């Protein structure tokens, strides 16, 4: 099971620049769809890559999409070589996105995020507007499935502005 609190603590303590995106962000906004991993968009400057790799190292991150016997070591260099990583760690699954579909990199994603108190930690969480934009861009059946709920939640955020 994912320990969202521990993961967020680890990232915040290490001062990693990141935005919570995906299902956990949707859940923070009130979505009822379950998710099993924490998705984040991370800043790709060298210092942040160092902080991110160092923060996750104690939890033995390994790639979910390669066989276990393939050697993999998550460090700043490895992060620099790729963009998006699907990882399993001792504290749960975490997906790292250097770019978010329909939005762009960390800078653009951060600009579309809201500061949210999660477990007493101040985290940047992708806004409903951002989530909707991302789901529309990705447009897989599973993304399109959650769109009506996200759009309803956005309308419920500002009921006075609900329009046909």
């Amino acid at each position: 099971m994912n320990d969202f609190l521990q993961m967020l603590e680890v990232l915040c303590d290490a001062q990693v620049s990141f935005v919570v995106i995906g299902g956990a962000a949707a859940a923070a906004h009130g979505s009822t769809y379950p998710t099993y991993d924490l998705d984040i968009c991370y800043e790709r400057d060298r210092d942040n890559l160092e902080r991110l790799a160092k923060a996750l190292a104690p939890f033995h991150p390994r790639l979910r999409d390669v066989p276990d016997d393939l050697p993999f070591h998550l460090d700043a260099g490895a992060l620099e070589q790729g963009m998006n990583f699907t990882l399993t760690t001792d504290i749960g699954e975490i997906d790292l996105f250097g770019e978010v579909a329909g939005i762009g990199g960390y800078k653009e994603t951060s600009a579309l995020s809201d500061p949210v108190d999660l477990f007493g930690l101040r985290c940047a969480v992708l806004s409903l507007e951002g989530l909707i934009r991302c789901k529309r861009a990705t447009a897989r059946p599973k993304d399109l499935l959650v769109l009506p709920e996200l759009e309803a939640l956005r309308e419920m955020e500002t009921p006075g502005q609900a329009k046909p």
Partner: protein
Amino acid sequence: MIAGEPMDKMRRGELIRLVTSPLAGSKIAAAKEFGIDLTLLVRMLELTPTERLQKLASAQAFFQALRAAKKTSTHE
């Protein structure tokens, strides 16, 4: 709403009215038509973002326990 402040009675009443009688052509009406339980969304919005993630973690634990039970019963 995401800032985590508790929802007051007036706001809750407003949302309940909105989801029980959504404006024709609105996204809320479309979600209702799609089959989404809008009252569950109101319930979620009554919680703080942290409480929503805790609920998600509880659901994960429940599904994991169900899967484990199914595996055990399959192997018996």
